[in-house]
């Protein structure tokens, strides 16, 4: 469902085959949130969100300059080695040196990931705050929620075939099908 929603937003899925998506998006819940998030992500990627670009650029630049320290946390290593040693007692014995190298690798990866994750989280929250401030007046509204009667009228007034002329007012009262 989320994949389809993403495809719809990207224009890879025809709107005519997406009625169920639109219906469930309208119904609210998780899919509605996804809808908002995907658009937000799209806006961010296209650089349409004011200021967010400079923030992400600054964060990325700072990240670039920041030395990544690989020195492992001593107590963490102690614990890991300790638990490894316990494990070694119960399972088949193996070389202590390879075990140490492996846990060092794990820690290094964990560290990197957690840095990336926190940067991403900060960026995301920051963007959300900015976006929410703007959204109040700029968020697009579904056409069915806000029928442009002035354009229906203008079309009917100028269309070469004018059968609708006879029920113009009546058809305009039919705003909510």
């Amino acid at each position, binding site marked *: 469902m989320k994949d389809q929603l993403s495809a719809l937003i990207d224009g890879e899925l025809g709107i005519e085959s997406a009625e169920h998506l639109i219906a469930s998006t309208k119904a609210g819940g998780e899919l509605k949130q996804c809808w908002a998030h995907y658009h937000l992500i799209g806006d961010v990627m296209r650089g349409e969100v004011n200021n967010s670009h400079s923030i992400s650029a600054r964060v990325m630049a700072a990240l670039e300059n920041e030395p990544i320290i690989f020195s492992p946390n001593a107590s963490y290593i102690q614990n890991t080695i300790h638990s490894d040693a316990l494990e070694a007692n119960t399972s088949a014995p193996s070389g202590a040196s390879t075990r140490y190298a492996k846990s060092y690798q794990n820690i290094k990866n964990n560290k990197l990931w957690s840095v990336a994750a926190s940067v991403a989280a900060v960026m995301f929250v920051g963007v959300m705050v900015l976006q929410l401030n703007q959204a109040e007046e700029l968020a697009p509204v579904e*056409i069915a929620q806000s029928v*442009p009667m*002035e354009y229906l*009228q203008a079309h009917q007034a100028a269309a070469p075939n004018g059968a609708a002329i*006879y029920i113009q*007012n*009546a058809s*305009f009262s*039919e705003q909510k099908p």
Partner: protein
Amino acid sequence: MKLFASALFLSLISASCLASDDAWLALQKSAHAARELNYQGVFVYVNGKQTSSVQVTHMNTAGREMMRNVVLDNNPQASSANGNQPREVYSQGSDIVIMQQKNQKTVIEKRRGQNLFPAMLPTDLRSIKASYSANFGAKEYVAGREAQVIDLISNDAFRYSYKIWADAEYGLLLKMTLVDNKNKTLEQIEFTQLSTLNSQDVNWFQPKIDVTKSYEMQNNTAVNQVHSNWIVAELPIGYVKVEHRALAVPGKVMPVDQVIFSDGIGSVSVFVEPLIKGMRPKMGQMSIGSTNVCARVLDGYQVTVVGEVPVLPCLQIAKAVSFKKQTAADK
């Protein structure tokens, strides 16, 4: 006498057309009959959930066409919401005047060049021959007249199909339905009463409105100077541009750009306006009866497409709108 002569002429065409079994000729005859014959009657128009009965009087004297339409009923919901009374429509040649009682006033609106029922078919059928196929159907009775059914079937998904009931003798369009590609009827217009108009008297051609009430001219007229910076790069096949105008819309600061495209019967309007501060952009698609509406936002402009056409051409036209400076930069 005039009626007799034209009836004789038309039945001569009728004889030859049945011989050649050409449904297109029958449609041609129908298109002319609506504009040349003298008749009066009542027709009923149904679109979506809405219905309206209209009394029509049509006369063609010495090549001058006069027509009066009086809407006999009104949707109670609509009238209570808008305070509107039934309207009268007068046309002479291609000029149309619509009069309507509204809040103790008579509102008068002028239009030009619209084809009103039963003159729904273009007199020049060449424009629709490429996009539709015409076939004879059964013979049925409509408003007490024998009618030849002609199916005008869309060749693709870019337009609706039409079913036409033409008077077997005079060719006059008695009934017409608009059908989508699932064979569902979206719109129907048909005579429930019809007779020839034998008098040459034109006293009927004057408004029934209360002249003691004040009147106002409706001000939605087009602004003359039209220069726009956008194009529809690729039109659905069969559609051509028929009009371009800058429209002063009540409640809008800037004039709105309107371009109308038609395939000969169906038509669709594209509206482009700048999204000014505080304006909420609209997007998506919706249907009201046979009318589809699509909206999108492009480079800070609101693009709205409205037409009595299927969803597909509506979306395609909305998607094909682009600004000229962009295409120039691309090249």
